[in-house]
C-alpha cells in the first residue's frame, strides 16, 4: 500500500477535463465508472479526487461538451450517465493536440537536442 501511494501522481491542472472526455469516447458512463476507468487505465497511478470530478462533470455539461441522462445500471440502480456531444468530440481533439504540444515542449526543455 505505501509503495502504491508513492507511485501515484497528482493530476496536472486542467488535465482532468481531457481525461474525462477521452474516457467518454468509449461510450456513456456514470461518474463512478469514469473514475474507475481512469484509475485502471492509468494502472492505479492517477487517482481522481472526487471533490473535483463532479464539479468538472457539471462544468463540462454546462459547456455543452457532454450531456447527461438518468438510466438504470445492470444492478437496477438509477445512475446519471454522461455522454459526449458532437462539440465534445471536437473538444477531445483540441485538448489532445494541446496536450501533445505541451508534452513535446516540456520534453525538448528537459532534453535539449
Amino acid at each position, binding site marked *: 500500500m505505501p509503495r502504491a501511494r508513492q507511485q501515484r501522481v497528482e493530476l496536472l491542472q486542467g488535465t482532468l477535463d481531457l481525461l474525462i472526455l477521452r474516457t467518454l469516447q468509449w461510450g456513456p458512463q456514470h461518474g463512478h465508472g469514469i473514475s474507475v476507468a481512469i484509475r485502471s487505465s492509468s494502472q492505479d497511478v492517477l487517482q481522481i479526487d472526487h*471533490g473535483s470530478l463532479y464539479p468538472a462533470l457539471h462544468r463540462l455539461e454546462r459547456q455543452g461538451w457532454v450531456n447527461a441522462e438518468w438510466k438504470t445500471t445492470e444492478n437496477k440502480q438509477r445512475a446519471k450517465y454522461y455522454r459526449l456531444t458532437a462539440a465534445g468530440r471536437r473538444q477531445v481533439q483540441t485538448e489532445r493536440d494541446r496536450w501533445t504540444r505541451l508534452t513535446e515542449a516540456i520534453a525538448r526543455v528537459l532534453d535539449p537536442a
Partner: protein
Amino acid sequence: MTWRRPWTLLRRLFLLRAQEDRDLDDELAFHVAEETRLRLERGASPEDAARAAHLAFGSITLAKETTRGVWVSGAMERLLQDLRFGFRIVSSAPVLLLSAVTLVALVIGGNTTVYSIAHAIMSKPAPGVRADNLTTVSWVRDDGFVEPETTYANYLDLAAQSQSLGPMLAYQYVRVALGHENGSYGIWAAAVSTNYFQTLEVPIALGRSFTENESQSATSGLVVVISDRAWREYFASASSAIGAAVIVNGQPATIIGVAAPDFRGTQLAPSVDAWVPFVPFTRAAGGSQPSARGMEDNLPLVGNFVGVLAQLRGDASLAQARAELTTLWERLQTQYALVPQDRSVTILPYAATAGGNSPISTQGTTFLAIFSVITILTLMIVCANVANLLLGRATVRQRELALRQSLGASRTRIVRMLLAEGLVIAVLACVAAYVFARWMSSIVADLVAPMVPPAVLQVITEPDWTVAGYSLTLALASMAFFTLAPAARVWKQPLLPWLKAGEQGVARGRSRLSSGLVVLQLALAVLLITSAGLASRSITLFATTDLGFDSRSILLATVNTGGGAVDQSTSAALLERLRTRLQSVPGIEHVSYSWSGARGSVRTETLRSGAAGESAVAATNYVGPDYLRVYGVTPVSGRELGVEAGRTITPAVVTQQLAERLWPDHPAIGRRLFFGQQREREAEVVGVAPDVLFNGNRPTGNLYVLLPSSSGLRDPGERTLYVRYQGRLDVVAPAIGRAIRTEDPRVPLVRLRTFDAELEADLWPVRALAMLLTTFALMSLIVAILGQYAVVAFDMRRRTREFGVRIALGASSHQILTAVLREGFRLTVLGLVIGFGLSVLTGTGLSRALYGITPTDPLTYGTVLLLLSLVSLTACSVPAVRASRVNPISTLRQE
C-alpha cells in the same frame, strides 16, 4: 438570446433548484453505493466496505458545495443564492427576525420621518413654483444677522444691472381686506413686482398676469390676481370673476386673473390669496413714490421693504452671481448715502423657507447637526441591540459554523453566509422602515394640520425618493455594523475547541457593555415616559382650570378695520360704531373689544404703586366699554371702564390680586398707578375687578390692569370684538355677520369662533408636544425592552448547561425561573433608579412649564414604575420559562 439568460437564471434559482439539488444528492449517493458494492465484491465486510467507500470519496459536503459553485457562475446569481440561503436560515428563527426587523424599522423609520420633514421644510420650493433655478437674495449685517429684505429702490437698481441673474422679482406680504358685492374678507396679499408670475413660472389659470406698464401707473386703477382658493370660495368659481370690481383696503380694484390652483405664494407661510402690483398698491395706501431714490426715509417702513428672488442664468454659477451682486451692491453703497453701509449682499438657492429670520432658515444647519448626532446615537444603540441579538445566536451557532468549516466550507463562504443573513434582515427592515415612515409622516401631518398652512402639509406629505434612499443607506450601514462583528469572530476562531467542547462550553462571559447599554436604554425610556406622563397630567389640569368666569356663550368676532378706516382715530371710531350696532342685535347681551386677543401673547409691564411703593409685573390690556360685563363679572369695588374719551388722567381697572399686591391693606380706588421702570406713564385706579383669567390660563396668572382703548390707539388692522350672547349660536352667529355688513360692507369679518374653541387652540402646541413625547417614549420603551430581552436570552442560552446541571442536582423549575428573572430584573431596577433620577432633574428644570403638578408627581411615577415592571417582566419571562424547562438529560448528553 439575451432575454433567455435572466429567465434560465430565475428558473434555475427557484424552480429547478430543488430538483437539481436532489439529483446531485442521488448522483453522489450512487457513487458511494457503487464504490461500496465494488469493495463488497472484493470481499470486504459490509461495514468496512461502506466506511472505506466514504473515506475514499472524501467530503461529500465539500463536493456538493463545489459542484453547486459550478452551477452559479455570475455574481448576481451568487448573491441571489446567498440571499435565498440567508432567508432560509433567518426565517428558521422568526422571533429573532421579528425583533431585529422591528428594532431597525422603528429607529430608521422614525429618523426617516423626521429627516423627510426637515428636508421638505428646509429645501423644497413652495408648492406651485415651477422655475428650478431660483435663488433668494438676502442681506447680511455685520453681526451676522441675515435680513431677508431691502428697499424697493435697491431692488430696482440690482434688477436692472445684474447680468448673471435673470429676471428678479420683489414681494411683500400685507394683510388686506378684500371686499366685493357678496362680502368682505380678511386675507393675506402680496404686493409684487409685475414680473412675479413669469419669474416663478407659475401659470395663470384664468385671465392674465400683470403687464409691464402696470408697474407704474396708478391712474388706471389697481389690478388684482387672486388665488384659486379665493376664486372658488368668494366667487363660486365663476368666470365672471375676471373683470369684477373689488375693494382692496378701501381702494377700488379690478380682478384680472386667477393663479394656478396649487400656488399660494413663495413661502410656506403665510398662504397668499391675492397679488397686487407693488408701486400702485403702495402709493394708493399712502406711500409716496416708493421707487424714487432718496425717498427711503419718508416712506412708511412696512410699505417700503421687499423680499427678492431671482432666476440664475443658465451659464452662471452661484459664486459668480454672488461676486457680481457684491460689486453692484458696493457701487450702490458709494453712490447713495441711504443705502445701508453695514450690510453685505448674498444669494442662496431658493427654498420655501430660505432667507428670512425664521428659526428654520437661520438655525437650519445647527438643527441638522444636532439631528445627525441623535440619528447616529440612536442608530448605534439599535445596532448594538441587534448585534446583541445576533451575537446571542452566533454563540449558539459557533459550533455549527466550526463544523461547517471543518467539513470544508471556506471562511469566505461562511462570512458571506453571515453577511447574507444580515442583508436579509436589512432588506426586510428597510421595507418595514419605509412603510413605517410613511405612516408616521401621515400621523405627523394629521397632528400639525390645525396649526400649519396647507402648503406645509402638502410639502411634508409628498413622497420623497431622497428620503427612501436615506433609509436604505441607514439600513445597509446598520446591517454592515451588526453582522461584521460576528463575522470577524468567525474569521479568526480556532476550530478545535468548538468541536471538542460541548455546545455551551466555551461561550464567553456576559458582556458588561451590553448590560450597561440595556440599563442606559431603560433609563432613557423611563425618562421619556415620565416626561410624557408629567406633560399629559399637566395638560389635563391646565385644561380643567377654573378661569373665574363662564367662558361659554362668548363669541369672538375678528374684523379688519382697514376695510373702512384710514387712520388711528377713524379705526377706533369704526370699532365703537360696530360695537353699538352689535349691541342692538337680538340675542346679544353685551359687546366689547380689546387689544390682545383671547389668546396669543399678552403684553406685560412693570407696575409701581408710588415712588418707593410696591411693584408687580402684570398683563396690560386696552379694552372697550362693557369688557367686564362680557365676561359676566361685576367690579368688586368702583366701576368698570366706559368710552372714557377726553379725560386728563387715564382711568384703570385692576384685578383684586394686583390691588392687594400694590396696596396691601388699603383700598385701591383713587390711587395712582405708574407704568415702567422709570414711571413713564400713570393712571388712576377707578375700579377693582374680580380675579379672572381674562386671556385663559397663562403664567402671569390673574394680575391684570385694564385701560380704556381710547388711551392706546392703533393703526387700522385686525381687531376682535367680544360678544356675550344668549340663545342659539346658529341664530346669533349669522346675525353678527349681517350686522357688521349693515354697518360698513367694506369691513370683513375675518374669523368668528367661540371663546372655548380659542382656548382649545391655545392648548394645541402643548398637546402636540405631549403626543410626540408619548410616541417617542413608547418607541424607546420597545427598543429598550427588546434590548433587555436580547441580553437576558443570550445569557440564558449561554448557561443552558448550568441550568441542566442545577436541575439534575435537584433545583426546581420554579427556582430556575426566579433566578433568571432576578438577573433580568436587576437591569430593570437599575434602569428605573437612573431613569427616575434623570426624570427628577429634568422635571425640576422644566417645572416652570408644568402646570399644577410637582416634578415628582407620585401618580406619574407610580404608573411608570408599574408599566416598566410589567413590560420588563414579560420580556424576561420568555427566556426564564425556557430556562426552567431545560431538559437536564438532553443538555448533559450533548457533552
